């Protein structure tokens, strides 16, 4: 035998190397351009062409797929509603330690009245209440109740200022005094630097008022009387200011301010805390303030914590969710478990069928494949409803079992509105997704492998298990990925036949999207689901290898 070496790779003679001269200078094309450049030019046109062909789809995917997912990811951490609705309050709370026993200082209470009055005007306080209610139950009623009384806070000072000088009732005077020089209505209201320096709270409160007027009704603030909290702010500013600073005021209303400053010490006054407590005594609760403080940053992990049955306590620590609200971990576990069971069932049912079809003559195989695909051509709702008809207690299966005598009439089986019903219906619905990849892989396994195994002495079972089965594994892998990922996010079927014990996490997501309107939590749950799928996909790639997946 002379040829053992001939089949082995033969080291190439170095003729090939010699054929190339030493290449110091780059090769040039016929027109004298460097060859590489010419090649790139010609390839670039091809690339542009290819890009042009996929561009519409790319755009479509970007708009309808990538953008919504990005938006969802963003929503799951986004929390700007607190700092936008209560800008002065959150600013006043910066120095306050939420983990202590004390309530925040008066400035925070006063700031709350400025912010809340503006929020009420814009109907934003109930939205904020709902948002914070996700974190601390009961907080939304505090906001709702406060909505009715908040613009009376400071009325006591309003009366005294007006009694001192009726000009304090003049809306135009207020706008001139606080407003920056040259401001006029349609432009967003801005306070003057001087007002912000001498009367910081008044400037903030009046700005909140003026902006609310402009946004809500497009009213000119200069034509509207400020609400009472603005007078509270003026009282607090003037009480805090010293005479020299007030007399240094150069803007409009200098003498009125001086007079007011002289008089304000003699005003009848009530602690701010009591004024706010009169509106709603929930504001004397530490937790309410702590919640506002904890959720004042523009981004929050709160939704994600809720998704895994944890929460931020009002003090800002991560603690377990209250017992009666712990549901998400259970739902995630159930979703994963049931998806695995459904995947297992589709393998058990689908493998023999795919094997049978792949070993049939073409004509019969096509007919059977059509039967496999037939369910695809009927509506998902119809199929699911059909399972309801079959599985319910007065349904076909129970009737038959009772008729045969296997089951007593008063002990009919509960097969729907529970996990069993969901598993049966979803196995049926997802079965084609297992059969098709299996079939396409099995079809490519030549029968000669099994024959070879048998001729080598393997029994039918050994030939199948040692030779056929390993080669069908890529099909199983593809089927498993398809079925598992489809079922982990399945919604309609669990919703219709799942009852309470057979619902998936997707049903919870849908609930938060359409019923409780807690989109942040829905987004966080969806994000976790997405991450779980990606992690599983990655694991699968590590263990089985994504290259081994074949869809035929």
């Amino acid at each position, binding site marked *: *035998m002379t*040829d*053992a070496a*001939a*089949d082995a790779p033969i080291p190439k003679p170095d003729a090939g190397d010699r054929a190339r001269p030493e290449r110091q200078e780059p090769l040039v094309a016929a027109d004298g351009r460097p060859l590489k450049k010419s090649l790139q030019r010609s390839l670039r046109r091809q690339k542009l062409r290819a890009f042009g062909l996929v561009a519409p789809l790319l755009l479509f995917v970007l708009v309808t797929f990538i953008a919504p997912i990005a938006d969802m990811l963003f929503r799951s951490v986004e929390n700007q509603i607190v700092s936008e609705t209560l800008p002065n309050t959150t600013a006043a709370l910066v120095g306050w330690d939420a983990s202590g026993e004390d309530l925040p200082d008066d400035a925070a209470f006063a700031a709350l009245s400025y912010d809340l009055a503006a929020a009420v005007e814009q109907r934003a306080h109930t939205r904020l209440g709902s948002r914070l209610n996700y974190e601390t139950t009961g907080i939304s009623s505090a906001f709702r109740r406060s909505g009715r009384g908040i613009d009376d806070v400071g009325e006591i000072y309003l009366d005294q200022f007006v009694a001192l000088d009726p000009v304090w009732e003049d809306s135009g005077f207020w706008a001139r005094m606080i407003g920056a020089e040259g401001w006029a209505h349609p432009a967003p209201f801005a306070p003057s630097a001087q007002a912000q320096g001498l009367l910081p709270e008044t400037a903030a409160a009046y700005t909140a008022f003026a902006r609310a007027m402009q946004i809500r009704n497009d009213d000119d603030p200069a034509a509207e009387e400020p609400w009472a909290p603005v007078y509270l702010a003026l009282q607090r500013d003037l009480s805090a200011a010293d005479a020299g600073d007030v007399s240094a005021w150069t803007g409009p209303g200098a003498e009125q301010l001086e007079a007011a400053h002289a008089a304000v010490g003699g005003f009848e006054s009530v602690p701010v805390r009591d004024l706010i407590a009169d509106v709603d005594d929930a504001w004397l609760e530490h937790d309410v303030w702590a919640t506002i403080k904890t959720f004042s940053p523009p981004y929050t992990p709160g939704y994600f914590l809720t998704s895994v049955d944890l929460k931020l306590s009002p003090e800002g620590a991560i603690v377990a969710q209250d017992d009666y609200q712990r549901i998400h971990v259970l739902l995630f576990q159930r979703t994963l478990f049931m998806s695995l069971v459904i995947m297992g069932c589709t393998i058990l049912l689908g493998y023999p069928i795919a094997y049978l079809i792949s070993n049939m003559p073409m004509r019969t195989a096509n007919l059977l494949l059509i039967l496999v695909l037939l369910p695809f051509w009927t509506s998902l709702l119809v199929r699911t409803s059909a399972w309801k008809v079959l599985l319910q207690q007065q349904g076909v299966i129970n009737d038959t079992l009772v008729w045969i005598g296997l089951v007593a009439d008063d002990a009919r089986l509960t097969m729907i509105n529970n996990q069993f019903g969901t598993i049966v219906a979803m196995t049926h619905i997802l079965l084609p997704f297992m059969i098709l990849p299996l079939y396409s892989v099995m079809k490519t396994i*030549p029968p*000669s*492998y099994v*024959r*070879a*195994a*048998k*001729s*080598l*002495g*393997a*029994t*039918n079972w*050994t*030939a199948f298990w*040692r*030779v056929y089965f*390993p*080669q069908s594994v890529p099909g199983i892998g593809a089927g498993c990925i398809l079925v598992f990922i489809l079922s982990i996010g399945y919604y309609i079927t669990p919703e219709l036949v799942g009852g309470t014990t057979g619902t998936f996490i997707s049903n919870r997501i849908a609930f938060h999207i359409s019923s409780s309107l807690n989109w942040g939590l829905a987004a966080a749950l969806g994000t976790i689901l997405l991450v779980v799928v990606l992690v599983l996909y990655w694991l699968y790639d590590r263990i089985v290898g994504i290259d081994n997946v074949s869809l035929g």
Partner: protein
Amino acid sequence: MALDAGNRKTDFVVFDRVQKSYDGETLVVKDLNLDIAQGEFLTMLGPSGSGKTTCLMMLAGFETATHGDIRLDGKPINNIPPHKRGIGMVFQNYALFPHMTVQENLAFPLEVRKIGKDEREAKVRRALEMVQMQDFGVRRPAQLSGGQQQRIALARALVFEPELVLMDEPLGALDKQLRERMQFEITRLAHQIGITVVYVTHDQTEALTMSDRVAVFNDGKIQQLAEPDVLYEKPENSFVAQFIGENNTLTGTVQEINGTVATVRLDDGEIIDCTPVNVSRPGERTQVSIRPERVEYNRDRLSPDAHTIHAEVLEFIYMGDIFRTRLRVAGNEDFVIKTRNAPDQRRLQRGETIEIGWLPEDCRALDA
């Protein structure tokens, strides 16, 4: 260690009146009777659809005979499942298990026979040495070239020491050079080990060069079963004459049969002498078969006994070692002759009219 002729059984494998039908209407194999001796290299040769592969599959146990007995070493095997027959088999596309290494492939038949690990490894090593592939044990089949895969498939079929090995067109996927080398190697191994080989192919060169005997199949029947030289030189019917090697055919009618000489009037009126093979009486239609290399146009080389006839040169092809000339002879325009490129050989011109001749022994009158 080839078995000596005295010991070997002449009826190691027996097909006894075997018939096979797939659809109950037509017979794919018709009344097959075949005895294969121990240690023999027998080739089943025939065009596709001639029933040769079906015969092999029946022997392997993947098809069942519709009628008749197949016996292996005296025992009927019709009802024995393939894995209990102990017959090695090499498949057309090798059928090496792609998910196992070469070693695992070779160990597979030993494992299912529950042979201990040490013995298994020793046998695998020996089998790899036998095909000179000992360095490739840890590779996977996909990492081997076609010829290497072929060798592994051969080693796998032999590793459990079967007495009978079946090969189903094992060289079909190889290129010509490799095929020729493997032909040589397979015959060498077969004779060295002394196993019985039943080999299926549609390549007549392969059949002629490798086999002890060749069974030519057509239409579900063995047309001729003979040693390669007999098959080539003395075809028994026109199918075998056409199928094996190149062949010139002239049609005519038998005029007279006189012992070993038949006089045939060709369709254009020419009368020639032939050896009668399967013509029996005057008036019968016949196809006269002459091998291209038995025809001579050089007067100096022509035997005095030769029968001569006029021919017109239609095409002259220089092929290096030989000249291949296409002629019009007795109305047949595809009459080909091959002449050796000898120094005294004359090259012909197209359009030239020459006289060609052949011996009556080389000219066989077959069925029409």
